[in-house]
């Protein structure tokens, strides 16, 4: 049993998938909005199996975990607060519901890379600061906008984008010599996969792959923080982030007019896979082959 639990494939794929599926089965009956807790559960499972749940000392990796566990809840918090705002301010509701969580993710990423920032002059560190901030901002905004898609033929893009971004982040982090970051990203991929499976069997009228804003943000936060931090603390080339940031866009375009939901999901996944392949190739060319 111990040997099984130390297997990286079990730690990063099977275990988080099973835990996420169990959590999703419970919340499928309670509230589909909170299915994102399955992603957090999957992430915690992998963390428990790899390095343990201790948060002290508060290293950069532990800050990523803390951010990934706490920040997703800002979305339901903002949505709940904005629901009290008069209907005439609906446009501002949308903007604030997207901007505030995004801003918090940007602050979190700066907090994560603070040990490096404080050792450098601002003239030396601003490109890195700008780059990681823009990346986490773009990923957060992209997924929060994706969450507003409600057409069944577009719903596949949500699940596909989340899975492919997770796979891309994991693969490129693995190439960049951080297996732990890769495992955490793969755990998100497995957890999102379990949610897609739930929507498949539930035959939701909203479509296969449909995820709530909370679920999408719960996936986006760890992936954004891992990808950005890997350019600072691991060997991930910054160019890779330029490819990964387009994953949600490739999942969205073109307009998918395929009848069968699972075929629609596969097509969206294939489209979102294209920038992932490019990202992995760039990482391989610059960082070199994987060897552990």
């Amino acid at each position, binding site marked *: 049993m*111990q040997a099984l639990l130390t297997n990286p494939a079990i730690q990063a794929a099977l275990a988080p998938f099973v835990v996420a599926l169990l959590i999703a089965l419970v919340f499928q009956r309670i509230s589909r909005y909170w299915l994102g807790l399955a992603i957090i559960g999957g992430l915690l499972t992998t963390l428990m199996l*790899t*390095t343990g749940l201790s948060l002290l000392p508060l290293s*950069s990796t532990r800050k990523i975990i803390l951010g990934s566990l706490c920040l997703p809840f800002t979305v339901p918090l903002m949505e709940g607060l904005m629901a009290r705002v008069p209907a005439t301010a609906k446009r501002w509701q949308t903007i604030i519901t997207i901007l505030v969580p995004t801003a918090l993710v940007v602050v979190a990423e700066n907090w994560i890379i603070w*040990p490096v920032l404080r050792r450098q002059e601002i003239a030396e560190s601003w490109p890195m600061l700008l780059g990681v901030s823009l990346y986490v901002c773009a990923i957060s905004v992209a997924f929060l906008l994706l969450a507003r898609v409600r057409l069944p033929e577009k719903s596949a893009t949500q699940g596909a984008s989340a899975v492919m971004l997770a796979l891309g982040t994991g693969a490129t982090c693995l190439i960049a010599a*951080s297996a732990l970051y890769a495992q955490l990203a793969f755990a998100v991929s497995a957890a999102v996969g379990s949610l897609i499976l739930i929507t498949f069997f539930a035959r939701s009228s909203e479509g296969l792959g449909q995820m709530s804003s909370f679920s999408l943000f719960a996936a986006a936060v760890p992936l954004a923080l891992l990808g950005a931090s890997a350019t600072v603390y691991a060997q991930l080339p910054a160019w890779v982030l330029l490819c990964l940031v387009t994953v949600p866009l490739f999942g969205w375009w073109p307009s998918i007019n395929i009848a069968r939901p699972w075929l629609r999901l596969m097509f969206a996944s294939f489209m979102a896979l294209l920038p992932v392949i490019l990202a992995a190739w760039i990482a391989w060319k610059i*960082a070199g082959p994987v060897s552990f």
Partner: protein
Amino acid sequence: MKNTLLLVAVLLLPATGMADSYTIDPAHTFPNFTINHLGFSTLHGRFGKTSGTLEMDKAKGTGSVNIVIDTASIDTGFSKRDDHLRSPDFFNAVEFPEITFKSTKVTFKENGATVVGDLNMKGVTKSVSLNVDSINCGVHPFSKKDVCGFNATTQLKRSDFGIKYALPAVGDEVDLTIELEAVKN
């Protein structure tokens, strides 16, 4: 008479002893480690950049050691593995660029010493005890400077310092040897 007594006192002053201060010679000081790799073999590695200071007063039986190790200078003979060791999975060299050892107590033995001190690695500080078999001091044949050197050994658990990745496949117990030479100031 008074002048004679004063002269004698001044001449005797070094013998009543201030500690000798040394600066660690980075070209001849290397922390080395060995660790079990997947149960197949023992992996050897070392840190290539070290600095620090040493103080010794054998007459009084006191001393101190301060060692600063550049985390990124880790070298196991394979660059991709070294990259992995520098990553957040293990030492996280970007966030924790230095490993430090500061002695808290030095106990001289017949020819060697036991050095107890605080080892700080990856943001965690733990007390470790270094065993020094013999302290060898003399005049360097080329530089003509006073040099002291020793090998200090200890065993520690990497998990105690929060380096838990790949346990138990990659061993928890690490044998550490610090081969140190220092030049008298």
